[in-house]
């Protein structure tokens, strides 16, 4: 999957979490920060992680991703960081599968 495709899917998930009315008034891109730009509550971030695990969990290790981050790094995370990690894991999984 390309980063653009993953970003599109993440955008749909975010719209579901924070509501279309609010989400569609924003331009959610790679630089969008969950806390600063989207004002995502921490419990909503957990919900996003659960949705991502359900969608990509077979090839993306979100536990490893988050375990390596300090608290302020998770708070300041951008959409792009997530998308990039998912793309990286997907590419690796694809390469392994041949």
């Amino acid at each position, binding site marked *: 999957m390309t980063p653009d495709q993953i970003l599109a899917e993440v955008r749909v998930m975010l719209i579901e979490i924070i509501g279309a009315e*609010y989400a569609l008034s924003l331009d959610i891109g790679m630089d969008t920060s969950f806390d600063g730009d989207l*004002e995502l509550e*921490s*419990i909503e971030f957990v919900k996003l*992680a659960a949705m991502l695990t359900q969608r990509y969990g077979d090839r993306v290790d979100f*536990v490893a991703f988050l*375990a390596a981050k300090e608290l302020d790094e*998770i*708070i300041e995370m951008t959409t792009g960081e997530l998308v990039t990690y998912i793309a990286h894991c997907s590419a690796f999984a694809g390469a392994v599968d041949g």
Partner: protein
Amino acid sequence: MFIHGLGMDNLSSFYYTLANPVAYAGAEVILYDLRGHGLSERPRTGYRMGDSVADLVALLNALSVKGPVHLVGNSYGGTVALGFAVTHPHRVASMVLIETHFRVTGWAEQIAAERSRVASADESALRRWLDRLGRKATRLADAADNLLDHTTFLADLATVRAIPMSRLRTLTCPVRAVYGEHSDVVDYARELDEYLPHCVLTVMAGCGHSVLMEASPALRKIVLDWFVTQTPSGIR
């Protein structure tokens, strides 16, 4: 099993700090939102300590967790862990208690006082201020309002009685306790140390009640080291 604290807290405070590192180390990790918190239901009643313990028992049973569990509780979450441990000692392998109250008199009064301080401000001005801060502040305030105004949360908290020290003394499971040097519950550290002599205690210099947030890296090391000692055949 991670148990968060009361009020504005939910499972995300552990999700952001300790839960993923512990899971990465190989443990099976469970987090949940207490009744009335996070994304859990907010029924009108059921906020007494006995209810909190019963909810924990029901959750473990629903998840078919039969063997002893390692509990990690923050603030009131630790109190729930203690309540569970004294009534179900065979189901507890160890406990990590962070900033945990084990005498809870005065809480309901504290929360009620805070609530009336906020409510006495001009309601419409307060709402305008919250709206300016954006959706997050408004949602958090609404959630807290719902819990305080539409449930028996405060009344139930007022019924909570201390766990008798004689019962705490019956606990044999290993206990790791962490308190912030400047928190208002640090006195509990000395009492816990007295009644659970096998408890391993750390007081974090420079920290207040929010040890979990203020000292995440140090706390993470304490918890991971603790689980290594508690599970010599590997963290599971």
